[in-house]
């Protein structure tokens, strides 16, 4: 019975203060929505990719050597932490399909367990006859099981039957070469065959890679170092799983969204927490007299406490659950498929750990806070509670200590100033809300413009070619290139993945770009925009890479030479490149350390029309225009734009809710004063002015404090969003002004609504209510 009556009271109370309950509900929903939503994106990718790595037994590292010997295999298997060592053959091959797509061919022994294809249908026969084809590639080329496919290995065509379709852990996000940035299954895929099939071409089984599986928790850097010692000068390169093409792309995607889902939900949760808790406290304090009545009626302390705590708990739980239902479904379902990843499953996974954390925080700020506020009031006697709480008295404010200013202020300004100071709580609440909104929008816009700025910087400032032509190195040589006459400016470029040992002991393959000293089509700059040139007696490294490895000019790195040992080279120059981190050096320096300059690509700026004849000649393996590369770079980060739009919408909702909430409070709590003004003969618009100026004041304050918040968030995001991109994360005036204008616009809408509400309410009722 007792519960029943109280429960009815709860429902009616909620209906009565529905705008506050709704705003708490919306804020809880928003915070959980954005947290679980952003989390679900990376969590889904992470889980599914991890499952694929597990089920296909993806190696932890690969040692590429010309031809692995049994001693080398044995030596690596003895390294502490190494569980399993196998060898395989891995190479890019041409096909005879239309468009001349490339297939990456993996040849595995029949007993291998590492780096298996994940069969979708068909089979991978052990006997060695058939092949397993990339199912995306098969779909793009309309190939079926039983069809034949021809690949060119070592200059010889190999015709092989397709036995199965599969996905590969190494091809979740795989691109063909340096001219492409986004996966295109029409142009690039993989094919897995048995090593036996190679016998017809090479006369024997051939291998070029040692796959190494380590036990969990082993020191990979140590393993790499020791494996390097084992293979010695035979090494071509050692690649850790996390540095390999597809895995590192997937990881950087995960990292991108992990960063977003760390920063934004924390901001939203913080704002939500602050605002819900102060709203709850106000609501409970307004129930002061009712608590007195309930106590006087003889309700127990506990049932009253629970009655008021349940208010917060109910909205908190409802909002959070609603956010949980919405977030992953909206964010995850929209964003995950846009990431162009080839996973075996796209079903959305939810990070419940973070959800529980958010729920806990929200319940603390709703239920917990109402519990405390109610308990505070309970310590008073019922009779004390039934008495009206004495109104806050007016106070002198600091401005009055400056009489010259205070006396010049208009009367309404004085009133507004005093009221603002008197209701600091409300001011802080709306300021924080607006600060969150402006901060989110600034950082969202900054992320967007830095990312799109990358395309402009990379392909506008750094690279100034019209076309990048990837050469078929088997058909070109220095004589050919010397005699090549094209109508335009050309620059020869050798791009080569080279094993490097850094001073900190880290060994990994880095992209080394070798080009001519003049470098007419690659304009390198330092961080301040001053042009820098390639050094004569050492190498140039990009800023991001230097930072990662803690390098400065003058430090020495060791570069592995082909078929020879390592050579020490000094870092002479550091340049800022937004996209494309690596090492740059001149052809003369490359040759001076004992290598041969073999251009793999030709950069061209045409004087007139592109030379079609040259581009279609067989020395050209591939070519890409600067525009297409820029588009492709933008589209590879374009997904972030979608997230940005979401974030702006959410930032706006936050501002709406908070401003409406505090704006209505400002009105409701002063309705008696305002009614007095009305009676005295103030017009609607004059009263509106009094209320709205105060609201706009907090908006202005919030906007200003939102700038450093936005700056800070932008900086965090820029520094952690993608290790291949060197983002500065500087906020621009345009973005700040845009964010400010948007916030102002939201505030304007909210104030229109409040002004409308003010007109609706019978203001004289307020005066009568006390009598």
């Amino acid at each position, binding site marked *: 019975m007792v519960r029943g009556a109280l429960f009815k009271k709860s429902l009616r109370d909620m209906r009565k203060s529905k705008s506050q309950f709704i705003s708490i509900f919306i804020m809880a929903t928003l915070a959980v929505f954005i947290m679980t939503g952003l989390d679900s994106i990376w969590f889904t990718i992470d889980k599914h990719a991890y499952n694929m790595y597990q089920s296909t037994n993806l190696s932890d590292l690969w040692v590429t050597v010309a031809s692995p010997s049994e001693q080398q295999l044995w030596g690596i298997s003895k390294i502490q932490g190494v569980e399993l060592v196998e060898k395989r053959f891995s190479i890019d091959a041409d096909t005879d399909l239309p468009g001349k797509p490339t297939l990456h061919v993996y040849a595995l022994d029949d007993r291998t367990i590492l780096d298996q294809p994940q069969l979708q249908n068909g089979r991978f026969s052990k006997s060695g006859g058939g092949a397993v084809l990339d199912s995306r590639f098969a779909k793009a080329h309309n190939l079926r099981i039983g069809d034949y496919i021809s690949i060119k290995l070592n200059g010889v065509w190999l015709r092989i039957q397709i036995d199965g379709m599969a996905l590969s852990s190494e091809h979740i996000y795989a691109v063909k070469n340096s001219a492409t940035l986004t996966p295109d299954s029409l142009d690039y895929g993989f094919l897995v065959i048995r090593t036996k099939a190679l016998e017809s071409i090479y006369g024997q089984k051939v291998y070029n890679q040692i796959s190494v599986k380590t036990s969990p928790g082993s020191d990979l850097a140590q393993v790499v170092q020791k494996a390097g010692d084992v293979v010695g000068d035979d090494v071509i390169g050692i690649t850790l799983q996390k540095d390999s093409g597809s895995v590192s792309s997937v990881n950087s995607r995960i990292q991108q969204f992990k960063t977003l889902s760390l920063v934004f939900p924390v901001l939203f949760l913080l704002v939500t927490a602050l605002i819900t808790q102060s709203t709850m406290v106000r609501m409970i304090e307004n129930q002061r007299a009712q608590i007195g009545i309930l106590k006087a009626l003889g309700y127990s302390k506990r049932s009253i406490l629970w009655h008021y705590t349940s208010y917060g708990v109910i909205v908190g739980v409802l909002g959070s659950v609603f956010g949980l239902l919405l977030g992953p479904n909206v964010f995850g379902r929209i964003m995950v498929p846009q990431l162009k990843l080839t996973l075996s499953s796209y079903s959305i996974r939810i990070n419940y750990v973070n959800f529980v954390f958010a729920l806990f925080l929200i319940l603390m700020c709703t239920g917990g806070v109402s519990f405390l506020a109610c308990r505070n009031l309970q310590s008073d006697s019922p009779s004390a509670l039934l008495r009206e709480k*004495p*109104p*806050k*008295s*007016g*106070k002198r404010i600091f401005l009055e200590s400056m009489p010259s200013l205070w006396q010049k202020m208009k*009367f*309404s300004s*004085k*009133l507004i100033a*005093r*009221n603002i100071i*008197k209701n600091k709580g409300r001011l802080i609440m709306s300021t924080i809300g607006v600060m969150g909104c402006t901060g989110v929008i600034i950082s969202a816009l900054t992320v967007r413009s830095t990312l799109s700025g990358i395309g402009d910087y990379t392909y506008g400032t750094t690279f100034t070619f019209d076309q990048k032509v990837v050469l078929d190195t088997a058909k070109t040589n220095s004589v050919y290139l010397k005699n090549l006459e094209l109508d335009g400016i050309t620059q020869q470029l050798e791009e080569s993945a080279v094993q490097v040992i850094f001073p900190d002991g880290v060994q990994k393959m880095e992209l080394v770009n070798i080009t001519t000293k003049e470098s007419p089509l690659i304009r390198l700059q330092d961080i301040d925009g001053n042009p820098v040139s390639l050094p004569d007696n050492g190498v140039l490294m990009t800023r991001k890479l230097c930072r990662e490895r803690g390098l400065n000019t003058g430090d020495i790195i060791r570069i592995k030479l082909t078929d020879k040992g390592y050579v020490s080279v000094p870092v002479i120059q550091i340049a800022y490149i937004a996209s494309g981190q690596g090492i740059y050096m001149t052809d003369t320096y490359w040759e001076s350390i004992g290598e041969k300059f073999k251009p793999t690509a030709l950069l061209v700026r045409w004087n007139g029309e592109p030379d079609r004849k040259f581009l279609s000649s067989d020395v050209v393996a591939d070519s890409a225009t600067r525009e297409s590369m820029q588009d492709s770079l933008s589209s590879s980060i374009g997904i972030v734009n979608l997230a940005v739009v979401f974030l702006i919408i959410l930032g706006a909702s936050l501002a709406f809710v908070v401003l409406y909430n505090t704006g209505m409070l400002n009105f409701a709590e002063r309705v*008696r*004063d305002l*009614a*007095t*003004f*009305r*009676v*005295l*003969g*103030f*017009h*609607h618009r*004059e009263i509106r002015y009094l209320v709205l100026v105060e609201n706009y004041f907090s908006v202005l304050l919030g906007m200003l404090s939102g700038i450093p918040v936005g700056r800070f968030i932008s900086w965090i995001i820029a520094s952690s969003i993608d290790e291949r991109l060197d983002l500065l994360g500087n906020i621009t005036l345009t973005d700040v002004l845009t964010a400010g204008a948007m916030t102002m616009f939201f505030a304007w809408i909210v104030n229109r609504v409040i002004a409308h509400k003010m007109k609706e309410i019978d203001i*004289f009722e307020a*005066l009568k209510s*006390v*009598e």
Partner: protein
Amino acid sequence: MKISKGDPMDFITFENVEREYNIGDTVIKAVDGISFSLSKGTFNVVLGQSGAGKTTLLNLLGGMDSPTSGKIVVNEKEISGISEFDLTEYRRTQIGFVFQFYNLVPNLTALENVQLAEEICPEPLDAREMLKRVGLENRMDNFPSQMSGGEQQRVSIARALAKNPQIVLCDEPTGALDSETGRRVLRLIRDVSRDLGKTVIVVTHNAPISEMAHTVLHMRDGKIAKVQLNEHPKDVEEIVW
């Protein structure tokens, strides 16, 4: 709009004024067809039990409410049926209010509460001067919460008069005060309005107060039961309640 000029009896005129309220399905006639006239510069009392319709009458006269039917003319201008904006203008220039619970703005000092009038009125009286007249020259910089009930009511009177209105409306001005303070407040209202030539209407359920009025309107059930004219209004000190 204009009615016969010059007759001071017609400064305020109500003609068959009705005010109905819809509460749910029932219609309540708070003011049920009343007619009366009051002269300029007089002190008048509206007397009646609670629920008799006196506050509604005051609201109609004060431009806070409009009649359902009938005609109200104040100072040769009809105020029944004019727009919300014009009503506000009317309140602004013609009316001063004194409430039972003072309705001072807690955020403003006594002086600033009175200065509110200067903000909006075309010909306000000096705020300091008004506060001096109600005997609060030493309390000007105090906030309402720092003053007693009687002092707050005096600020409220100063505020009403500083607007330099034609009419001062008082709704139970002594209702929240002890009898001695109430007496002083009433005398203040009468003296100051007489000096400034204002017309005063006091609404009360406190019958003895009516003895100090020129005209007493007795209200019952929304109607005027009796209009009583006092040739010689008593002084406040002579009244016992």
